[in-house]
């Protein structure tokens, strides 16, 4: 296995059992990986399984079969303590999910303090730094519902960064935002990318994906049907499904 690979995925399958007992096969054998510092954009039609793929990486969804190896450890093994793994894999959600009953400061410091990684004082300092980095230093004692959507998502990114993760997983981070707020969130993500962060990004922002990604995965019907550099996938797609998808989303 390649030494720089921070995360590798082998033959990942995910099947959901519906309420009426039928099964829905969402991921049908995905094999891929990410190098330290690499930025991978995951695109595809809705229902293609791209979000499920991302959510399997930190076992928000339990994979049905397949192996995921993170920094040399098989995290799908029953022996793995997934809570320890998740500390090092930050996740940013479409709907932010800030904790509304906690101030911005507490949103950022809850996890590191509870897990005894930092004292409250150390975590406060780190929170201050991270908020400055996402341009919200003055909001540290604010309540989440006093923030705009874009500000909430920037806080959510800072919260994910508070655990000093090795990888950040972005699950459509701008899809729930008003158009005028998308830019500020993308700017923060761009800055993170430039700083060398390893990132998986599920997105519909094709322009942004093109700009920051080292590699693009096109997922369709639960498999990676095309992959390559942004230029290859966006400008010279080979698969008919990719061409059709891109023609639909890029026309707008």
């Amino acid at each position: 296995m390649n030494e720089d690979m921070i995360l590798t995925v082998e033959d990942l399958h995910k099947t959901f059992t519906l309420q009426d007992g039928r099964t829905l096969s969402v991921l049908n054998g995905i094999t891929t990986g990410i190098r330290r510092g690499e930025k991978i954009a995951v695109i595809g039609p809705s229902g293609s399984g791209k979000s499920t793929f991302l959510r399997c990486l930190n076992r928000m969804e339990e994979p049905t079969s397949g192996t995921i190896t993170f920094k040399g450890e098989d995290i799908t093994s029953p022996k793995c303590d997934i809570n320890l793994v998740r500390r090092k894999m930050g996740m940013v959600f479409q709907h932010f999910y800030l904790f509304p009953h906690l101030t911005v400061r507490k949103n950022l410091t809850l996890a590191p303090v509870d897990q005894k990684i930092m004292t409250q004082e150390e975590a406060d300092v780190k929170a201050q730094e991270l908020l400055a980095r996402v341009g919200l230093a003055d909001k540290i004692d604010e309540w989440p519902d006093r923030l705009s959507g874009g500000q909430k998502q920037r806080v959510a990114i800072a919260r994910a960064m508070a655990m000093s993760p090795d990888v950040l997983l972005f699950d459509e981070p701008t899809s729930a935002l008003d158009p005028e707020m998308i830019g500020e969130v993308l700017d923060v993500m761009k800055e993170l990318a430039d700083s060398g962060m390893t990132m998986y990004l599920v997105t519909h922002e094709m322009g942004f994906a093109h700009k920051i990604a080292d590699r693009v995965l096109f997922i369709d019907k639960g498999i990676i049907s095309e992959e390559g550099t942004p230029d290859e996938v966006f400008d010279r797609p080979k698969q008919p499904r990719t061409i059709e998808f891109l023609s639909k989303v890029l026309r707008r």
Partner: protein
Amino acid sequence: MSGRMTMRSKSYPGAGRGDILLGFVGAFLVYALWESGFFTADAWADFNRRFYQNFVKDDRYMMLVDGLKSTLFMTAGATVIGVIVGLILSVIRVAHKGGLHIPVLNKLAETYITVLRGTPAMVQLLIWNFTIFASARDLNTQYIAILAFGLNSGAYVAEIFRGGIESIDPGQMEAARSLGLTYWSSMKFVILPQALRNVVPMLFNEFIALLKETSIAGYIGIDDLTRAGQNIQALTLEHSQPLVMVAIIYLIMVMLLSNLVKRLEQWLSRGRRG
């Protein structure tokens, strides 16, 4: 009050301070009118004489005051037990549903809720007193009542909490877990504080329900408010004034508390939101 199979915590008609005063004066006037034969001089004099007998002579009103203290003591104690038991039961059930594999605990919690909600509180009280603690005669009966009412209330409070927990967006749990928090830490720091805030008004309603429910405590020999009224009856051989007074005292307390719940709801809905 016998077995209530459905969730009992419903909202009571809210009342402002004016309504409460009006309710008290009105209820008492209607009663006095009826009792005194619409203020015919003789009947009114008789009414006053009996009022003196029932409440003033030998400081008999103190029996009601002591009874009220007992009622409030039992209600407060039972509420505390009810909230603790209800919280534990609801967390077990939610955790089981949320993927933590605890089938035995879950079954126990379910059975507890079914049995305690499916049998009359009155019968439970009698069983606690005359069967389970039959040989513990030196134990203060009020503590037995608190236990009986509290454990009964816990079954109802469990359903209140469960509703509260399930009303929180599942994304909150995911976000907490994604940061490496354990399931229990996520519950404690993220889910429960939000759920608690949502159910505070319903917990107050549970308190109101308990306040009235403790009126059966007399059956195991506790001189609560209701029993105090009956005790006065026994002394004065007076059939109605003591119990009507007792009813009015309950009514005032319930109206005051309902008013508090209404204010609380308004305050909470003005507060922070997700």
